[in-house]
């Protein structure tokens, strides 16, 4: 369990760490996250030298490689501004694992300092920006899939649903076994494709059975996995990153 | 070097150095603050939820309650001790009845087959009980050996209401268990059960199919 975190007042400026999956596959989700922050009067600094948090190497056991990548990311955030990450998985890597990964190195103190400034996007919108949303979208049944890292590593099971609950046109439906993993797990889905497939199959069935026309998630790994499964089966259920969904319906 | 010495040596010469022991705060397993009524209700609810039957009786009338149970369950042969007041009183009260009283204070080798095949019930005293989990605590003795609460298909346990305590931790601490453990100490919470066949509960898989707790109260039971 993540200890109770004390949230600061809304700052003037933040860093945005887009993550590699967003960068390459879902850049609009990143941009929509930035727009949501800017609309709240928070200026956003996007360090152009950001690459990847190093998690794929870390969870694959390639600790030395992961450490080098992590150390390089620390240089991106010289000012004491919060660091906003539109992903529980990468956010969890930076907040929870950076300090341990870099312990005993010259980067130890900075890793701790950076980790303490990391916020997942929905967490920051709810707890720091106290975001108020006005829905302009059509009525729709939506299921939220909170990633395992957001839920368990960062303790953020509630922030995504809390934002969606503000949208008048959205009926939030809960799929069976909502807290169960979708089967992505980064390299897990590559190393154990069949087990991963069985998991995502159950997840898509549960979302469909809940009557959702759409699912949103705060992690692009889960999005890629679940939406990829729906699309493979030519199902109508659409997936979207929560940042894009919120921006689309409220702008 | 013996296995013992080799194992201990490896543990003592730990590569990452000696470990420090954390403090343990036991507050969460004690200080429930229940009154007697709450204790009784909780005990009955919990043991009832696992198929234990609770019968309340006045201290002075418990023989009648016992006789009723024996009659209702069709018990013809009852194994019991001799010296413990529960056994002694039961013997006296049942002496004129039709139930055969089977002496439990015999070496098991002399009557194992009899105990397994032709005893309908075992009667035991209890040392107390635990409200939190609905558990009886028994320390079997030469007078009331281990197997009479296990082998017969019905176990009748006699519990004095004022020996009910809140938690297992409280019992262990207040009665100084650590100062001297008996050969066998038992908590019993319901009759023997299993869920090994597709999660379906079935009772009496090895031990008793039924557990009846006669709770004796100092006052008349309304």
């Amino acid at each position, binding site marked *: 369990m993540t200890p109770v975190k004390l949230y600061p007042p809304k700052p003037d400026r933040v860093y945005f760490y887009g993550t590699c999956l967003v960068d*390459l596959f879902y850049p609009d989700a990143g941009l929509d996250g930035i727009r949501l922050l800017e609309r709240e009067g928070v200026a956003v600094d996007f360090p152009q030298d950001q690459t990847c948090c190093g998690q794929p190497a870390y969870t694959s056991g390639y600790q030395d490689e992961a450490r080098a990548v992590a150390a390089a990311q620390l240089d991106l955030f010289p000012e004491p501004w919060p660091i906003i990450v539109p992903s529980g998985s990468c956010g969890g890597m930076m907040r929870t694992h950076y300090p341990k990964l870099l312990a005993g190195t010259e980067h130890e103190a900075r890793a701790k300092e950076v980790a303490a400034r990391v916020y997942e996007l929905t967490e920051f919108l709810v707890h720091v920006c106290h975001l108020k949303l006005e829905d302009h979208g059509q009525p729709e049944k939506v299921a939220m899939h909170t990633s395992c890292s957001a839920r368990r590593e960062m303790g953020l099971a509630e922030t995504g649903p809390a934002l969606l609950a503000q949208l008048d046109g959205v009926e939030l439906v809960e799929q069976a076994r909502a807290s169960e993993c979708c089967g992505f797990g980064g390299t897990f889905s590559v190393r154990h494709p069949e087990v991963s497939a069985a998991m995502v199959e159950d997840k898509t069935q549960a979302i469909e059975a809940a009557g959702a026309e759409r699912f949103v998630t705060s992690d692009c790994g889960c999005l890629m996995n679940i939406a990829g499964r729906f699309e493979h089966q030519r199902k109508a259920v659409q997936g979207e990153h929560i940042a894009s969904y919120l921006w689309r319906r409220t702008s | 070097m013996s296995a013992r010495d080799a194992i201990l040596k490896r543990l003592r010469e730990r590569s*990452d150095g000696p470990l420090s022991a954390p403090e343990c705060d036991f507050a969460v397993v004690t200080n429930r603050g229940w009154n007697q009524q709450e204790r009784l209700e909780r005990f009955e609810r919990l043991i009832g939820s696992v198929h234990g039957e609770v019968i309340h009786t006045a201290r002075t009338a418990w023989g009648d309650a016992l006789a009723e149970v024996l009659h209702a369950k069709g018990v013809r042969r009852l194994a019991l001790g001799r010296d413990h007041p529960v056994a002694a009183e039961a013997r006296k009260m049942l002496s004129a009845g039709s139930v055969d009283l089977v002496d439990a204070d015999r070496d098991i080798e002399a009557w194992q087959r009899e105990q397994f095949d032709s005893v309908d019930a075992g009667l035991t005293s209890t040392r107390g009980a635990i409200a939190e989990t609905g558990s009886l605590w028994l320390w079997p003795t030469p007078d009331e050996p281990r197997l009479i609460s296990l082998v017969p298909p019905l176990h009748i346990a006699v519990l004095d209401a004022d020996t009910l305590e809140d938690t297992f931790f409280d019992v262990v601490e207040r009665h100084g268990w650590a100062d001297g453990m008996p050969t*066998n100490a038992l908590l019993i919470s319901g009759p023997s059960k299993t869920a090994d066949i597709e999660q379906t509960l079935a009772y009496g898989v090895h031990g008793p199919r039924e557990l009846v707790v006669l709770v004796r109260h100092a006052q008349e039971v309304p």
Partner: protein
Amino acid sequence: MNSPVQPSAVQTYTPREFHRQAHDALGNPQIRANFRKAMDGLMSKRRDVFDDWDLETLRDLGANIRLRALAKLPDLLEQLEANCQANGIRVHWAETGEEACRIIGEICASHGAKSVIKGKSMVSEEMHLNAHLEAAGIEALESDLGEYLVQLNEQTPSHIIMPAIHLNTDEISEILHQKTGTERSRDVDYMTAAARAQLRERFMAADVGVSGVNFAVAETGTLCLVENEGNGRMTTTVPPVHVAVTGIEKVVEHLRDVPPLYALLTRSATGQHVTTYFNMISGPRKSGEHDGPQEVHLVLVDSGRSNIYQDDELLDTLRCIRCGACMNHCPVYTRVGGHTYGTTYPGPIGSILSPHLMGLEETKDLPTASSLCGACGEVCPVKIPIPDLLVRLRREAVGEGRGNVPGAGVKRTKKEVVAWKSFQWLATHPAAWRGGTAVAGKLKALLPSRLGPWTDYRVAPKPAGTTLHTLVKRHQASQSSEETRP
């Protein structure tokens, strides 16, 4: 029943074949359904039973009790030995499973034993005690109903608490019918009564009872056994000799340490407030007592545990109280079942324990058989950081750990090293990264639409064409042009 279900065929499982075994299990609708139903039930029971507890405080206490015991482990083992001996329990030490088997075989031989009845003991499974005894001409019969069924079906347990959880009622009915001649019936009470009758004869006839131990209390020399069925009490009371076998990590310091661990164990394992029996044994039958074994032996087994003990991080593995909650909540275990792992301990705890017991050569696919979803760590009653330990073993497997796990480095391949070194280079050279990702986006038409097995079940992810790096630059440019507009 019109068409009896055939119980799953006798099969040998090995962790080396995890992928094949997972493939088979995933393709078996019966296995899938049996595990899903059972795990859903267990998860919901656990959720309900902790309601009136301060669960986090209790888990902290459980973790601290286990950590304290481990911190003092060598002293506590000596204290346990001394107090057991003072109680009349004979204590034996075994460095390996084979040595423990030999010790138990010798105890049996010294009594001319022909028949051993067993209570549930995962350590005895770990060291293949039954096979060892049978090779010595001694029959070893399991008495826990689930273990009995699994043994009749010539299988091994698929769960550490519920050994026969992979079998459904129809399969069990068929096993009992074929192996013991009972009627085919879906009546669970009938089947249970039949097993009771069969096993009672065996308890009376057994020369030796072998049990496991849930907690061994150093302070009093007491062996604690947790159970619902009463077979544990039978095993430890009816035969003239009782042999308890346990891993060296099961010791706790004080008797007062037991109630919190017991509370955590039953609630985490099966969602019960308490089990039917909590059986605390502090010696053989004393003079004047009328039942109980004449001899009690305790066999303390190391078998790799003292090696785990050396390392501050790996040490946490030894906190385990074997409740099985991690497997009940594991989405991988739920899909593939216990046999797929090919190890005595399946699921998350098995994946962090088995590499130490069997070596990473055998078990290299187990630490990766997790999506690191964290459900196991979340429910562990003694707060073992299972996901972190899985990652640690992945490091050991690819040769980037401390090298102190047997078989360390076995998974390190040139191809993977090159791939991750390239990743490192790119991710630490931002200009090259930006160039690379931009090109990947531009070339998306040329990228394969199939990405290995990923695309057997999902549509391949497609690069967006424009990276976030580029989008942000444009966004900032448009903003500043807006700002400069009069």
